[in-house]
């Protein structure tokens, strides 16, 4: 089934199985709904699949309140670029409630949000802001790359006791794959998966970029380079052991993601790996990520800012250059 169908199935089964689950968001109820929620209000009623006003702060706030009272709300922020409006509720309430109340309250909400990058919708409908939420203690951040992972991770998120931000990359919505139908199927958070084994270099990735990394690995294979593709699946919790295992073997790493590179998730991954594997690495860790620019609207420009097979392959080749030491500091340009 497609990614959208997998997400739909996860929501459907969660609603079916547990009265505490309800969905709220803009345009998620029939007949207007499209995407993963289409059909659900017809099946479960508009009390359990609830259209809201355009009020992102209150959508997340309301989810938090209901969660504190025992529900398992799944809030939708239609497109991730709008999540700033709900940032205060996520950061100052959801993330911190458990700690600030010494465990007396908590906010086990799931916030689903679509990443629109790649649709030519311009700079305010394209951002991938997961780095923000990684940085906030108390939140979990989930980014599936396949229909199977989407179903398994969303199911886990909904029933997880902590607030989860769940990213759905729009460019994957039509992607197909086998998905377990069992409602009990769930994938634990914090377990990366090797999506393709390899020996020469590890491509550490997540979300939409995994698809690109896999294509790059195919391309590299034709040149006799064996790339392992590690899909992190969740950024918090982060499976450091899996990264260290893989890169410990391949001794080279390239981090690939659709978020902007600068101060992005790849920075943290790189910082961890350089420390854990210092002396083992044969090359500096490279990052291939969105360029540091607001998303341009035209498709040709937009696709040029994202990780592409070409950019990934070039980065891998960089890690394979014989002499990696750059001992001449004067060579480094200003980035400021």
């Amino acid at each position: 089934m497609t990614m959208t169908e997998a997400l739909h199935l996860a929501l459907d089964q969660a609603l079916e199985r547990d009265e505490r689950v309800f969905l709220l968001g803009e345009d998620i109820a029939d007949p207007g709904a499209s995407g993963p929620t289409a059909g659900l209000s017809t099946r479960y009623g508009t009390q359990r699949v609830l259209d809201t006003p355009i009020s992102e702060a209150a959508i997340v706030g309301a989810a938090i309140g209901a969660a504190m009272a025992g529900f398992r709300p799944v809030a939708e922020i239609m497109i991730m670029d709008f999540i700033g409006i709900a940032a205060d509720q996520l950061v100052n309430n959801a993330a911190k409630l458990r700690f600030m109340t010494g465990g007396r309250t908590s906010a086990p909400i799931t916030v689903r949000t679509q990443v629109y990058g790649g649709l030519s919708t311009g700079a305010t409908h394209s951002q991938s802001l997961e780095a923000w939420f990684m940085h906030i203690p108390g939140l979990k951040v989930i980014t599936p790359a396949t229909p199977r992972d989407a179903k398994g991770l969303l199911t886990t998120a909904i029933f997880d006791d902590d607030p989860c931000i769940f990213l759905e990359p729009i460019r994957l919505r039509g992607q197909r794959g086998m998905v377990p139908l069992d409602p009990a199927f769930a994938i634990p958070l914090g377990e990366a998966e090797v999506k393709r084994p390899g020996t020469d270099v590890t491509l550490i990735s997540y979300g939409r970029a995994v698809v690109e990394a896999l294509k790059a690995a195919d391309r590299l294979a034709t040149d006799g380079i064996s790339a392992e593709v590690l899909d992190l699946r969740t950024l918090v919790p982060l499976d450091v052991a899996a990264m260290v295992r893989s890169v410990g073997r391949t001794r080279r790493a390239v981090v690939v993601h659709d978020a902007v590179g600068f101060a992005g998730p790849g920075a943290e991954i790189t910082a961890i790996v350089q420390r854990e594997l210092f002396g083992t690495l044969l090359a500096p860790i490279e990052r291939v990520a969105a360029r540091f620019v607001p998303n341009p609207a035209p498709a040709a420009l937009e696709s040029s800012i994202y990780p592409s097979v070409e950019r990934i392959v070039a980065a891998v080749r960089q890690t394979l250059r014989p002499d990696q030491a750059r001992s001449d500091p004067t060579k480094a340009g200003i980035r400021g």
Partner: protein
Amino acid sequence: MAGTPNDSTDPPDQPGLTGLTGLTGSSDPDDRDDLASLAPATARRLYELMTLMKTADDRLSRGISSGELLTVYWPSRGQEAIAAAMGVCLRSDDQLVTTYRGLHDLIGKGVGLVEIYGEMLGRQVGASRGKGGTMHIASPGVGVMLSTGIVGAGPPVAVGLAMAAQRLGLDRVVVASFGDGATNTGSFHEAANMAALWDLPLVLLCQNNLYAEMTPTEHTMKIEHVADRAAGYGMPGTRVDGNDPVALVSAVTEAVERARAGRGPTLLECVTFRLRGHYFGDPMAYIPAEQLAAATEADPVLRFRARLVGSGACTAGDLDTIDAAAVASVEEALATVLAAPPTALTEIDHDVYADARNCPA
């Protein structure tokens, strides 16, 4: 009732068709047509603008349907009267903040079709050299300062523009144009409160088209009239038939003059309908058939045409000439745009900062 601004204490409209009953696009049959209250040149200019807007909108729809044009687009079709009224009531130094559904507003304020189409189609001749796209068109030379893709994000910026006008001692006015759904955002509230507090020269112009995306307005607010929100800020709230250009000119003029005179902002609710749904290609399955039929019946452009001819203000021939001119302008602009070079890849390297050397790697 139609033809003059209604205040917000009108009795509630029929459920399910909120506001639509007021959408006649002309005065009550019993009354004398108050078209006569407009100067003939104004009436003609309104029609010119409305037909240009309709033509520009229809052409995009046709082009996208046929595969000739590739863009994302949120049609304004059906909301022509509001934008045309702004067009005739605003001075060119007045400023506008609008949204993704801005085609008509932009035309009304005087943005050239080449700039608009060019931006939508990713051409170097676009308002932003094609980089911003459909949702983000600005043309400060004619006062269009911002179009936002984020619902509700415009009014706070309009507050700042109005503060600037006030500080500079200019008598220019700022209009923030947004939808009914936008009035549920916190940003709208914060901006409206500030505007009233500081007596800013601002018109908060709500184009209440009865839907926000696929959700009917009555599913997102308990109140019947958006204009009722004004009381919470201490500014006047006015509700007007958004399909009636004559009523709109009167209501917009009143709000603009109030702002210009330093007497502060107005919340102006203009009740209308999106005839093509939310985005281009929207199947509109969520719109009840009778509602769509009634709205189509109330098409402001066709109604205004009939009214101009019926009242003897213009002949059908006059209006045919105007229509033909609109088609010619639209085709010419589109041809120019399609012949123009696509946005250069190197555009990415500009305008992130004033000085590109500030960009990290």
